[in-house]
């Protein structure tokens, strides 16, 4: 039986662990040279790998995960530096790209652990050099020992905003300001519901308190207005305070992000249906608590199936592997399954509370000014997207893929990864429709750019 696991982050590692323990030898595919995903991303050779410095409170988990990953490679068909750019659920094949070499492989069952990326709001100036996602700012520090600038403004909301602020402070980086679109009062009100998060909640509080204690300028409940920049660099970020006063901070870099959203393109190509999750304000692939999808032979785990965080990813990976094993007539230990289910359910409650504590400010996305660039690949502005509500000669486009095909939103190299949700919020508002009613950008292969090769694949 041919099992393919896509992704070697926390979900993929724990999934493979269960599969190998059951005597299987899955094909294990990951785009990075050495696995680890994002939270536990390992720096390239040549850089120091002190776990406490890199992963802080997560050092123990990171070590355990990396240890497991390294031990498992030899027990699988380990395929690093490999992009899975297409999946055909009928033919049960994957299309792979390794360097410039393409290959088609078959599978009987596939477990997709494809992770997530930051969710953004396209404020004016966001495409300039010096503006990155929160995730990017963290990756720069963790894996390259760099901050994104000398005087960095951190903008957005969510646990990552505060974690990054803490990590940058610890690394001695000057933080121009932390700008959280969620008001302090809102977070405080949400705190009791977060108590169930145990260590995760405690760590979050610690980060926030540490940042506050260090005298970093903090603004909460703000509305970002624009990022100012010259040709060479970012110079500042203007915003409105919670009380509505215009304000700005000088900075030479801005890291922005409002939580995460799943990278679910392969799930889409695999035919998994999606539903719009109001709390996550995102289209989420359908799966049950165990990671089974409505498509036979396709399983999902980790942030790629819906944002849950690294701890949830490990549990979900293990759980989905057990579901796969159950479905393929392998014995599984019922108490183990029950314990995983219970822990996942408990953490789900915490995750929901976390989403509520740091809500995605959809109104900010909706109100992006006409001149602001929404699709950074193709240079499509918010005004052009709004034109789909009737002004354009092609009439009204009440569906996101139709709007894409006319405005070119999402037709660039990133295929709507970055701009898709904001574009949807803008279009839905212009149409006076619910964002869930205008559909979602349909994934099209290849999920990432694939180079022309002079020869067809063998």
């Amino acid at each position, binding site marked *: 039986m041919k099992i393919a696991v896509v992704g070697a982050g926390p979900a993929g590692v724990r999934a493979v662990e269960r599969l190998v323990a059951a005597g299987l030898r899955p094909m294990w595919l990951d*785009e*990075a040279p050495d696995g680890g995903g*994002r939270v536990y991303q390992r*720096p*390239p*050779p*040549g*850089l*120091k790998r002190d776990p406490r*410095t890199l992963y802080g409170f997560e050092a123990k988990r990171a070590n355990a995960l990396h240890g497991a990953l390294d031990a498992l490679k030899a027990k699988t068909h380990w395929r690093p530096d490999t992009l899975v750019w297409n999946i055909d659920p009928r033919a049960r094949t994957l299309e792979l790209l390794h360097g*410039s070499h393409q290959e088609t492989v078959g599978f009987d069952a596939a477990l997709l652990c494809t992770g997530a*990326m*930051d969710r953004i709001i396209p404020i004016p100036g966001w*495409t*300039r*050099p*010096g*503006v*990155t*996602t929160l*995730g*990017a700012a963290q*990756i*720069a*520090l963790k*894996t*390259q*020992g*760099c*901050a*994104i*600038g*000398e005087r960095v403004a951190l903008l957005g909301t969510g646990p990552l905003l505060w974690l990054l602020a803490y990590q940058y402070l610890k*690394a*001695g*980086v000057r933080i121009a300001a932390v700008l959280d679109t969620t008001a302090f009062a809102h977070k405080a009100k949400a705190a009791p519901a977060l108590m169930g998060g145990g260590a995760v909640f405690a760590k979050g509080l610690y980060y926030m308190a540490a940042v506050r204690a260090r005298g970093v300028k903090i603004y909460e409940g703000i509305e970002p207005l624009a990022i100012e920049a010259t*040709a*060479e*660099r*970012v110079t500042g970020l203007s915003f409105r305070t919670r009380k509505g006063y215009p304000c700005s901070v000088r900075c*030479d*870099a801005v890291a922005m992000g409002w939580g995460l959203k799943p*990278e679910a393109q392969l799930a889409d190509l695999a035919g998994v249906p999606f539903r719009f999750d109001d709390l996550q304000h995102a289209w989420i692939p359908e799966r049950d608590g165990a990671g089974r999808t409505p498509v036979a032979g396709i399983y999902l785990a980790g942030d790629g199936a819906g944002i849950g965080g690294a701890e949830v990813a490990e549990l979900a990976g293990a759980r989905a592997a057990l579901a796969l094993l159950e479905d393929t007539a392998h014995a599984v230990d019922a108490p183990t399954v029950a314990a995983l289910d219970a822990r996942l359910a408990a953490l789900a409650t915490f995750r929901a509370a976390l989403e509520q504590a740091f809500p995605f400010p959809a109104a900010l996305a909706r109100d992006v000014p006409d001149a602001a*660039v929404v699709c*950074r*690949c*193709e*240079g499509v502005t918010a005004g052009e997207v709004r034109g789909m509500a009737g002004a354009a000669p092609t009439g009204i486009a009440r569906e996101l893929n139709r709007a894409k095909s006319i405005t070119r939103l999402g037709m*660039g*190299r*990133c295929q709507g*990864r*970055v701009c898709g949700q904001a574009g949807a919020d803008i279009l839905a508002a212009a149409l006076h429709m619910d964002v869930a009613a205008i559909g979602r950008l349909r994934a099209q292969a290849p999920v*990432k*750019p694939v*180079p022309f090769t002079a020869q067809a694949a063998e």
Partner: protein
Amino acid sequence: MKLKRVRDAARPEIALTLDGQPMTGQAGDTLLTALLSAEGGFLNTNPFLNEPRAGFCYMGACQDCWVDVDGRGRVRACSTLAEPGMSVRRL
């Protein structure tokens, strides 16, 4: 933009060229790090807005950091290690 080295910042230097001009990075840098470690760094010019870009997500998702490396073809700067002697061209 200019990335600021704050940790592990004394690795062996490696020499590259960017659009024919010499640049130095450090062993272990990605191309993105090496190419953005000097003032006014950028990786490509967006042809529709005619503006410089320097990547965005640093994790291979946003596709805004593609560069051309002699002998290698087009690569994402964020997920490609800088190697001594690489000749990089902006798209």
